């Protein structure tokens, strides 16, 4: 049996990472800018269909009212121009007001869309950073066991570029929703005892498995003796910089 020598320092690294993860969330997800954006979205009033219909009716009714009012009160003699022309001018003014309202509404919608887009982009980049900075190796495998996504920590664990990892046949993870101990094989000859945790999720519309690896400790193969020797400290090249 191989002794687990370097478990304690590794736990310290993980605790410190969790603290930094919290700070990262506070900085990125709950910052002032995002709060202002959220308020902006809530403060923008949405134009209801009834309101648009009311404004349209008002645009038609006002010139008609002016026309009939002028006719009933017999202002014809006092006015220099015909009541029809007055109504027409009022109608044009009302129409311009209606168009202006619609333009305003469109502008409001554009701003709203931009704010939502920015909020979405910020939240996505926040999640992306959490995945990128996570000390645990994370891969997503599809139903056939092919790697569809790998984070930088996984790249370091396996000693392969992310581009090379994507599309490789990893294998179907057996214990979905549970944790199991496996030995990860680094390309430089290191074997890493790791806890493999598997969670089922949907990835690009298909059933997939999020597989994360937490390192226990590692040991190295010595070519002379054909034996893997435990090493006291996990080398920097396979651990994620925190």
């Amino acid at each position, binding site marked *: *049996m*191989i002794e687990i020598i370097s478990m304690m320092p590794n736990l310290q690294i993980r605790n410190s990472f969790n603290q930094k993860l919290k700070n990262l969330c506070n900085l990125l997800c709950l910052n002032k800018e995002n709060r202002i954006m959220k308020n902006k979205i809530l403060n923008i009033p949405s134009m209801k269909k009834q309101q648009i219909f009311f404004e349209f009716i008002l645009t038609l009714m006002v010139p008609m009212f002016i026309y009939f009012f002028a006719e009933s009160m017999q202002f014809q003699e006092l006015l220099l121009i015909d009541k029809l022309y007055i109504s027409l001018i009022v109608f044009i003014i009302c129409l311009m007001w209606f168009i202006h309202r619609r333009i305003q509404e469109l502008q409001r919608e554009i701003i709203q869309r931009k704010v939502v887009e920015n909020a979405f982009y910020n939240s996505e980049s926040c999640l992306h950073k959490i995945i990128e900075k996570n000390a645990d190796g994370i891969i997503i495998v599809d*139903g*056939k*066991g092919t790697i569809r996504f790998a984070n930088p920590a996984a790249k370091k664990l*396996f000693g392969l570029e992310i581009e090379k990892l994507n599309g*490789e*046949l*990893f*294998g*179907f*993870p*057996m*214990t979905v929703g*549970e944790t*199991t*101990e*496996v*030995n*990860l*094989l680094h*390309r430089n*000859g290191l*074997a890493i*005892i*790791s806890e*493999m945790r*598997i969670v089922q999720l949907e990835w690009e519309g298909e059933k997939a498995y999020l597989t994360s690896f937490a390192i226990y400790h590692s040991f190295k*193969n010595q070519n002379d003796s*054909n*034996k*893997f020797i435990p090493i006291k400290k996990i080398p920097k090249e396979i651990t994620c910089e925190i």
Partner: protein
Amino acid sequence: MDLLNIKDCEMYKFQLYILKDNTNSIRAIEEIRRIFENEFHNQYTLDIIDLFMYPEKAQENSIFATPTLIKVSPAPIRRIIGDMSDRNKVLNALSLDD
């Protein structure tokens, strides 16, 4: 999935990649042997490849972790990783259709 149909067809060929000194690998060998003996009797071959002895095999066959069980034949090739104690899960994972 019909397990009876699987058993009736041609000889099954499996490869199990392990690291010999590890408890999880030893356990995987025992569990896989137990499952296969019960399911296929003598109608299978199981190659146990110790990556202590043949580290180059890991790169040749793109083995990322141990224990890894590969169903080499009949097609399609299936590969499973991790705890292999559950008979139903192992057999289901190995005979998934395309």
